[in-house]
């Protein structure tokens, strides 16, 4: 089928929990792929995204590579979506924001119990850590936010079907309250 909606997904400083929750739409995936084609995503192994309609980003921004990936998505996706608590607020990885980065790295690589051959990794292949973990909307423009840790499968389903059917996405209250 031509003119399928092209969707890309990625996880930055996240745990892939949001992706797992997305897969929980279960058999509805079959309905979805009638309208949707996956571009760059952990479920396709395509390395770079091109000309996509929707980009789903899980996780916050913790290092320079996250910044590059996020920018690639922004450049190639018409609609960019922050998925889950980490993308929206920094989430669990942002708990390190209360500890200076130098202390974090010293503890992990120099002073921690059981560290052998202490040294801070410096291979140019490795991305450098930002001093603080940031929500993604502080680095690029984000069009929509899907709250939740993780957002439920129904949230993904409602959001994507709204977009596919040309409606302004809206999440009813029972999908976004958690107590």
């Amino acid at each position, binding site marked *: 089928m031509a003119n399928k909606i092209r969707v890309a997904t990625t996880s930055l400083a996240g745990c892939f929990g949001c992706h797992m929750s997305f897969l929980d739409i279960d058999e509805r995936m079959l309905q979805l792929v009638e309208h949707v084609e996956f571009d760059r995503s952990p479920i396709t192994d395509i390395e770079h995204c091109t000309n996509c309609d929707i980009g789903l980003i899980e996780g916050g921004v913790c290092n320079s590579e996250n910044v590059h990936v996020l920018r690639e998505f922004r*450049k190639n996706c018409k609609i960019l979506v922050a998925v889950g608590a980490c993308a929206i607020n920094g989430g669990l990885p942002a708990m390190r924001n209360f500890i200076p980065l130098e202390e974090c790295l010293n503890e992990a690589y120099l002073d921690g119990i059981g560290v052998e051959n202490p040294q801070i990794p410096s291979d*140019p292949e*490795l991305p*450098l850590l930002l*001093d603080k973990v*940031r929500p993604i909307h*502080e680095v*690029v423009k984000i069009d929509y936010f899907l709250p939740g840790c993780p957002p439920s499968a129904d949230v993904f389903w409602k959001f994507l079907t709204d977009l596919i059917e040309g409606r302004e996405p809206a999440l009813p209250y029972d999908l976004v309250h958690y107590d």
Partner: protein
Amino acid sequence: MTKFIQDLAETHRYQSTHLLDILRSIQTHYHYIPEAAIEQLAELLKTPRTQIISVVEFYSFFHLSPHGEYEILISDSITDHMLGKKSLIDYLSKKLNVAVGEVRQDGVVSLDNTSCTGMCDQGPAGLVNGHALTHLDHQRIDLITDLINQQKPLNEWPDNLFLVEDNIIKPGLLLNQSINQGSALQATFKRGLKETLSELEQSGLRGRGGAGFKTATKWKFCSEEPETLRYVVCNADEGEPGTFKDRVLLNTYAHQVFEGMTLCAAIIEAQQGFLYLRGEYLHLYEKLQGILEERRQAGLLGNNILKQGMNFDIEICLGAGAYICGEESALIESLEGKMGIPRNRPPYPVTQGYLDKPTVVNNVETFMAAASIAINGGAWFANIGTEKSKGTKILSICGDCARPGIYEYPFGTSIQTVLDDCGASDVLGVQIGGPSGTFIANHEFKRQLAFEDLATGGSFIVFDNSRNILEIVNNFIHFFAHESCGFCTPCRVGTSLLKKQLDKIIEGHGSAGDVVALEELCQLIKTQSHCGLGQTAANPVLTTLERYPELYQSQLKKISYEPGFDLDGALETARRLAKRNDAGAHLAQVEEES
């Protein structure tokens, strides 16, 4: 210390409602509130220690860690900035050898900023151990530095450092005619209480704090409550930046203000009154206590007032640096010795106020006007002003004008008239009603002072064309983020987000959608906040965005988006630790077009 705290608690009869007073004494004595004192107070006042800690943390003037023996606070009001506050505090910081926000290593002095201290007509201003300093300049700072380094006690400092002027420039109906002690009460008893209330009704007097509720109606509602224990509270927590008229009224017309409170007590049959005086006006405390004592001696307070069988007395409570306590229900919470968090309304204070008893809370100026009306009658007052705003309004005028000070005008006076009188020229705009009010531009000066047009609690700040509107707005927005009480999320989080978003635009990191995002945030804070602070906190942005949209747009970059922080700078620590400086160890602030 155990004995000190024990004695203190005993003096205050172990009343937890006196917590603020007790903490103030401890803070003055130890320059902070020690943990052990909190433990002991919890026992003595039968109050959870966490509640005491929350009160200490809530008020700016209490600290959990030691501050200097001399604690210097410099007023951060926009008017102080216009008088060169920034370079002065830098100079002071260098002279005293202490960074802003820190305590000097020897523990002798600490330095910080504080919200407007109400000395806008004689700034740059500050506080030393709570006592007001005015007209600060290099010479005075040199002197202060010497006094501190010699560790001279405050009572040996030269008086002129603490001189606070009234600067009454244009008195009107109320200020021209100071009343004789007791004459308002005599007139009231002679005419009859009911009859005096109806004179007040006829006068059309509305609350002078800004909201403008009819005074007679408020008093009537309170007097009709079935509960017999009732209270009168005078709101002298004059925290709106740019306002200082209540300071002058309490300095020079205190008798009349207290008389207005006593008059109210007679009408609503209250036995106890409170003057809630903002902590920044500590310099008035002793003087006001003296006046209360004088009135007791004269039979105008205490038992059997004027031999009419009326019993009423007034207590003065000092605030501790919280703007929110100017909101009447937060003020009542504070009077009860708690954090100043606004209550849900209704019930309003007239039905459930102090200790849940019916309470009238009015502004200083309202009580003063009520006393004059009791003598001169309702028509005398109602003859002046507009249809919906009767009488006069006392303004505190400051900023770019030749004669800052106190002015009194009939309602309905045009802004242009006021500007002409105070000697303002080349005016860019005027902030009416303080940061929570309205910014009006120079083509709107035909507008009037009145509840039906421009309402104000008294703040009137003039800006000339040399001023930068965005800097003004930024000062106000930072003020609200600092003063948010933290109770409701739209205000606590919203005012901080607003501060960050505005900083981003002003610092030049803004791009296409950022002004829209700014406005959306403003609407959210305005519509979702719990009390007046949040509901008005976005006004500085909203009122200037409406008038100068191009000013905001011109700050934006012609790109779709830019981060509001230094992206490459955020890698600096990691770069240093990994000893790297290759191309991969850097990030461009904005993605390069390819």
